[in-house]
């Protein structure tokens, strides 16, 4: 579904990613772990199309029916979203005065139009969204609050997963969705993500800690350090990291502020 080859990315003159290779197949869950500053969030943002990063080498192929042969990096963020890529933000943005339900509906309809489906009217939309609210144990009042405005940290993260549940992406990238969550919220979010697992869908979990992986078990775990994947393995690798920290995996030259998760 996703083929990343030799991806190099910098901000200004500063290289952040220094040759990433990654294959993600439909139905798989990949965890990308690593210490702070290793480039995890950059990778997530670049895949979603955030401007301000310079891709200096490499390619990303997203094997969607409509995008065969196209480099994902050439597409605008909205084109990627409509093609089924979803990024759950580490820091979701507030949009004052815009009701959550309004954004959800605009987003879903833009994605549906791309898929060749008709726009949902207000009633059908409400039915759809209510079933997703239940999945995440969210109250209906969420729909009528302004997008993320005055939301607690946990509410913001749940709201991201709600958007994901409504949009039903083919490739979901969750950027540090576990950060700032207490254990109950973490379980709810994990439950929401697990409920969306599907043979046609892939998930990339970007996370600093192992604890999310107790609830969402990954098929593959990759450790990112110094802008490269320095180790890949199965779920066992995450447990090993929990024990040993990141230090043993980091090349000598890597000067990283925080070695342990």
């Amino acid at each position, binding site marked *: 579904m996703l083929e990343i080859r030799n991806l190099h990315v910098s901000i200004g003159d500063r290289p952040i990613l220094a040759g990433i290779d990654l294959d993600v197949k439909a139905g798989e869950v990949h965890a990308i772990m690593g210490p702070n500053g290793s480039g995890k969030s950059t990778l997530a943002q670049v895949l979603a199309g955030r401007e301000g990063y310079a891709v200096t080498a490499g390619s990303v192929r997203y094997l969607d029916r409509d995008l065969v042969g196209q480099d994902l990096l050439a597409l605008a*963020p909205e084109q990627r979203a409509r093609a089924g890529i979803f990024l759950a933000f580490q820091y979701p943005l507030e949009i004052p005065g*815009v009701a959550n339900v309004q954004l959800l509906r605009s987003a879903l309809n833009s994605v549906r139009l791309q898929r060749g489906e008709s726009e949902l009217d207000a009633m059908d939309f409400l039915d759809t969204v209510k079933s997703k609210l239940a999945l995440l144990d969210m109250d209906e009042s969420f729909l009528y609050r302004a997008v993320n405005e005055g939301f607690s940290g946990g509410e913001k993260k749940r709201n991201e997963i709600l958007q994901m549940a409504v949009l039903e992406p083919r490739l979901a990238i969750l950027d540090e969705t576990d950060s700032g969550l207490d254990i109950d919220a973490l379980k709810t979010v994990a439950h929401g993500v697990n409920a969306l697992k599907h043979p046609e869908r892939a998930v990339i979990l970007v996370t600093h800690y192992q604890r999310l992986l107790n609830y969402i078990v990954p098929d593959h775990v990759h450790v990112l350090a110094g802008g490269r994947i320095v180790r890949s393995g199965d779920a066992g690798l995450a447990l090993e990291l929990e024990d040993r920290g990141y230090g043993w995996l980091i090349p000598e030259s890597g000067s990283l502020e925080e070695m342990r998760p």
Partner: protein
Amino acid sequence: MSQPEVSHPDARNAELRSRVADEYRWGFVTDIEQEVVPKGLSEAVIRLISAKKNEPDFMLEWRLQAYRHWLTLTEPTWSSVHHPAIDYQAIHYYAAPKSGSQPKDLSEVDPELLRTYEKLGIPLQEREALAGVAVDAVFDSVSVATTFKDKLESLGIIFCSFSEAVQKHPELVREYLGSVVPYTDNYFATLNSAVFTDGSFVYVPKGVRCPMELSTYFRINARNSGQFERTLIIADEGATVSYLEGCTAPMRDENQLHAAVVELVALKDARIKYSTVQNWYPGDAEGRGGIYNFVTKRGDCRGDRAHISWTQVETGSAITWKYPSCILRGDDSVGEFYSVALTNHRQQADTGTKMIHIGRNTRSTIVSKGISAGFGSNAYRGLVKVLPSAANARNHTQCDSLLMSDHCAAHTFPYIEVKNPSATVEHEATTSKIGDDQLFYLRSRGLSEEDAVNLIVNGFCKEVFKELPMEFAVEAQKLLAVSLEGAIG
């Protein structure tokens, strides 16, 4: 047999023209025979206007007093707007479609005019009209048609052109004209008092709740003409009325002057809601042409518990200079001002309100949303004045600015004068720039950049839009979207 795909220069030009026209969709000119008074301003011109309108002596006298006073005034320079000097002798002060005297009903209205209003989406034909909206349409200097007049008359409501009111209800005109905005008020209001040609007149009798929205549509058509309309709305004791106005003008390279006056009088327990969607031609991207909109609007809460609410959405005009205000004279009276002002390209707006607290327990609310894009300049200018008599007066002001480019400007000039120690006056202000992060967030959910901008802007304006009648709120959102096309990037 297929033609090579080379676009013909003419075809390209046509496409370009249609694209340009797309930015201002109301920019067409109606080809209609005009009756215009020669350019320039003099006592003779004022006498001619008054004679054309067959006015009683008190009106002519009032106009001449205003004109003589105007000659002693100079154009004010305190606002933040800049423009080349206006040549007041180069303006036609009266322009009217040449179809003789005032039409009695729609069948007497020039079909070309009816087509114009059809293009603008104004329902003049009662049978096609949106139920619940009575329309008075003003084309250049004269009122063209007033719909639903009979239905309103049965309730004792007078809704007609100003000219007709002068003929049929001179006692009301005489009593209230200039009682809120005197002819000595300010340079532009004084000019208006001398030369105003038409406008709307509303009187709602005691205890009557007007059952439909009343609406006026102003249209400037003639070249080199000014539009000087005057609107007077009186809500008698316990009466309620909601009034809407909309405005458009053709696209022209030269600037045109629009200097209107609106006076509202709310007696005891009366309630007036006045909504404006102003979409005069704003000029092109380089700032050529456009309307100079210098308007004086003021409401007088003359009785206890009177309530006046102004809502405005200002997206048009090269220059907007207006401060819809409330004089809170009656005890427990309430004044409100809700405003969205958008300036794109080279537009300038200096707008706000004045809330003058005189009565006890008077309350006022000000919500101002300024949006600046391109090279636009947007200023909020407001005065909250609490007189010694206004015990327990309260005001809350919220003033937000949204910046959409690196070249635009937003200014806030709040003036607060409190002369009673029991008053509570609050002022909140924010300035924000539409953020790349916000845009990316929305685009990563599948929204185009344009839709993302519109969503953010509509959210920003929500508190004001919810004050507008439903159809107008939808219209205002569309207008904002059109005015902001290409504003980002």
